[in-house]
């Protein structure tokens, strides 16, 4: 019994025209709340778009104050893609050239490659106060910011040396899009993922040369390069999903959101063939458990009080329920819900000197909640949220996959499916 579909007769295809000016988006914009220099999602988005179609000179450079958190889109009762409209306007109309600083921040993989190679030198240097002051003064990277440390050995190197060979022992297989953060800064998260997937009976493989998803390039208006990388990634995903029938999972909510939802809208890179089979590891695991195909066994002595922070892109995806459902399966977890608020970092946004105040102002309601929550640590799916929360509160942040890996009784779990 499929619902009847009617021939559209002058139904608007122009998403911004679906706005009925209810103004609800302005209530949930975290930027507007702390920085009134931003014209707000309604004015920047649907209202502004109409004016820009009249005359491109209506474009206002202040649109770069948008965090691209998409909370306006989640709130909109009429499905207006307000965030996309704003990002597209920046791509189309901005006359500002990206600064050297923006290029450094945006090229997470190139910078990462260099930095992790020289990690023992780079880490202490960027941590030095004088260096941070120079970065602040010359590059306009705010001196309050601490760069995430670069790991000595990249995840990809570790994988090839220590993990790759075992993966073919499994009957079922997935590919893993690890993203820049796991590769250069925090390989442990990738290792944790492999531990869980292996325990669940899945071999984990890397894509054929993944490239940075490009989210930072997009937000810094380096569109040509972002599009190139997007095309490359879609091809790499296809090789796994279409050619080998291996779904792609990731541990970064931002990377997967960008690949699924920003590639087609913002970069015009089609992803129809891969979208449905590209997802977060927590969603992949949840599906297996929900459909009775997998059972995880947890250690009896694991006891932790954990708060989950919903990153903006998880709010938009609606997927935080998978991560929280998995965490709640761990018997020893005392789970604390946080009201979903933006942390303010928005990738490279918060690193820029001009945005520091806004960034911290946006995050304050979240930080206050965390500080008063009395938890052992905070769980979240986004790496930049992790940095921001760790920089701005006294709490440590863990990825749900790492928490699961820590709490998982690998042997008992494996036994269940090996029988």
């Amino acid at each position, binding site marked *: 019994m499929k619902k009847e579909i009617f021939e559209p007769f002058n139904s608007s295809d122009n998403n911004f025209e679906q706005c009925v000016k209810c103004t609800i988006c302005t209530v949930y914009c975290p930027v507007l709340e702390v920085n009134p220099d931003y014209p707000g999602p309604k*004015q920047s988005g649907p209202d502004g778009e109409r004016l820009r179609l009249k005359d491109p000179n209506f474009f206002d450079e202040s649109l770069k104050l948008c965090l691209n958190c998409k909370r306006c889109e989640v709130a909109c*009762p009429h499905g207006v893609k307000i965030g996309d409209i704003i990002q597209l306007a920046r791509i189309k109309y901005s006359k500002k050239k990206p600064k050297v600083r923006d290029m450094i921040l945006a090229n997470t993989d190139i910078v990462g490659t260099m930095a992790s190679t020289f990690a023992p030198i780079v880490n202490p240097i960027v941590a030095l106060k004088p260096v941070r002051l120079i970065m602040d003064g010359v590059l306009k990277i705010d001196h309050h910011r601490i760069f995430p440390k670069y790991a000595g050995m990249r995840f990809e190197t570790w994988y090839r040396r220590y993990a790759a060979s075992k993966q073919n022992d499994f009957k079922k297989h997935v590919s893993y899009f690890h993203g820049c953060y796991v590769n250069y800064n925090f390989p442990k998260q990738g290792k944790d993922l492999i531990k869980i997937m292996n325990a669940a009976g899945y071999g984990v493989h890397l894509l054929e040369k993944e490239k940075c998803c490009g989210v930072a390039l997009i937000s810094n208006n380096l569109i040509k390069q972002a599009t190139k990388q997007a095309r490359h990634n879609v091809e790499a995903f296809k090789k796994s999903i279409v050619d080998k029938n291996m779904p792609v999972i990731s541990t970064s909510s931002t990377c997967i959101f960008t690949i699924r939802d920003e590639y087609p809208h913002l970069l015009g890179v089609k992803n129809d063939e891969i979208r449905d089979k590209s997802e977060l590891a927590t969603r992949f695991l949840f599906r297996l458990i929900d459909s009775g195909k997998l059972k995880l066994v947890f250690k009896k002595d694991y006891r932790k009080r954990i708060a989950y922070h919903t990153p903006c892109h998880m709010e938009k995806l*609606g997927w935080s329920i998978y991560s929280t459902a998995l965490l709640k399966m761990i018997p020893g977890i005392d789970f604390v819900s946080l009201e979903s608020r933006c942390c303010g970092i928005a990738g490279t946004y918060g690193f820029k000197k001009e945005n520091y105040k806004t960034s911290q102002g946006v995050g304050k309601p979240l930080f206050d909640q965390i500080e008063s929550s009395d938890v052992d640590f905070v769980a979240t799916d986004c790496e930049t949220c992790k940095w921001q929360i760790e920089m701005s509160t006294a709490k440590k942040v863990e990825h749900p996959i790492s928490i699961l890996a820590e709490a998982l009784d690998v042997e008992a779990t494996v036994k269940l499916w090996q029988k």
Partner: protein
Amino acid sequence: MKFDNIIIGGGLSGLTCGIKLAEQGKKCAIVSSGQSAIHFFSGSFDLLGKLNGQEVKNPLEAIKTLPDAHPYQRVGIKNIARLAVEAPQLLDRAGLQFSGKSDQNHFVLTPMGIMKPTWLTIDDFTRFEQNDVFPWKKAVILNFSGFLDFHTLFVQDGLKKYDVDVQIKNFAMKEFEAIRRNPSEMRSTNIAKVFDQGEDVLNEFAQKVNQLSEGFEVVILPAVFGLFTKNVVTDLKSMINKPLVLIPAIPPSVPGIRSQILLRKRFEELGGTYFLGDIVEEGTFKNNRLVAVQTNNHGNIKLEADQFVLASGSFYSKGIVATRDKLYEPILGLDIDGDIDSEKWLDEKFFNDQPYMHYGVKTDSGFRALKNGKPIENLFAAGSVLGGANALKEGSGAGISLLTSLHVAEQILK
């Protein structure tokens, strides 16, 4: 993903229904395609304000004379009386204090300065027991400089007929300068956010109000207090040395958003799952039952439940969609109670009884939604997605939402 009950629509009916079910231990989920129409809440819930153009004094009595097709008749007069007592109690448990009687309307002051009959009013606002008496003789209306969404002159004009001496004063405070300088953002919600941030602003404001209202018996202000922080209104009232009458501003409404937040919070604290910004794309029907729905965010992880409630709202919320010449229910393809002939949808006078306002989803007498003429056993419709009444003309929108959803919840719990 399996739940006991899934409610499509996260507005007043969806949340009321979800809270009632969750209070009885049901595992519920609400799928909401965005923030709901509670954001335009005036501060009062109407049960029945007008009948045939005449103001209603006793809604419970007047309801008896409504046509059979009216949702209230389908709930049943006895049930209405009972549920009308239950509704404010449920709201109260969510932290929303409402007062009023279902057998006697009271009045509230609208932004046009008119006394409007209503049923329940949130404690931010002032209840007037009579529409021909304004209890004070000297009133001052205060407004924030640059705030365009509160029309002091209209209120002043409306109060003239009560022989009230009304003065209007505008004032500025440095805390509001930043948003005022943004040409589009001096909105009620943004003013409320400033007050949300701390006691100091509220203190300073209250002092200013006391100063400006010296010599007056009552202060009238726009309802811009307490968006994310619940107790701002109570605090303010305790700091001002005379009665305070709040008046709604142009939506989005500050007390409305606070109500939405508190209702959702209550639902979630009871174990409910609220999916915001997700859209139900289609349903899986088996043997005249709806077994699962597929949403945009969750794709092939379908949401399953024993019973479903459709509380997706009217045209504004896209519960009902009109194309050039067809009306349809966009989520599950249910039958529509409305004119087939599109020429009959609209009246050429804006203020007339617009036929389209009466349209909704067809149901049987127990609010089971019809599809191809047959009721779906486990799918109920509640709230403004129902047809059979022009809630705007009657002043019955909130009543229909609250009471049909409580009634439907009872059907499910039976």
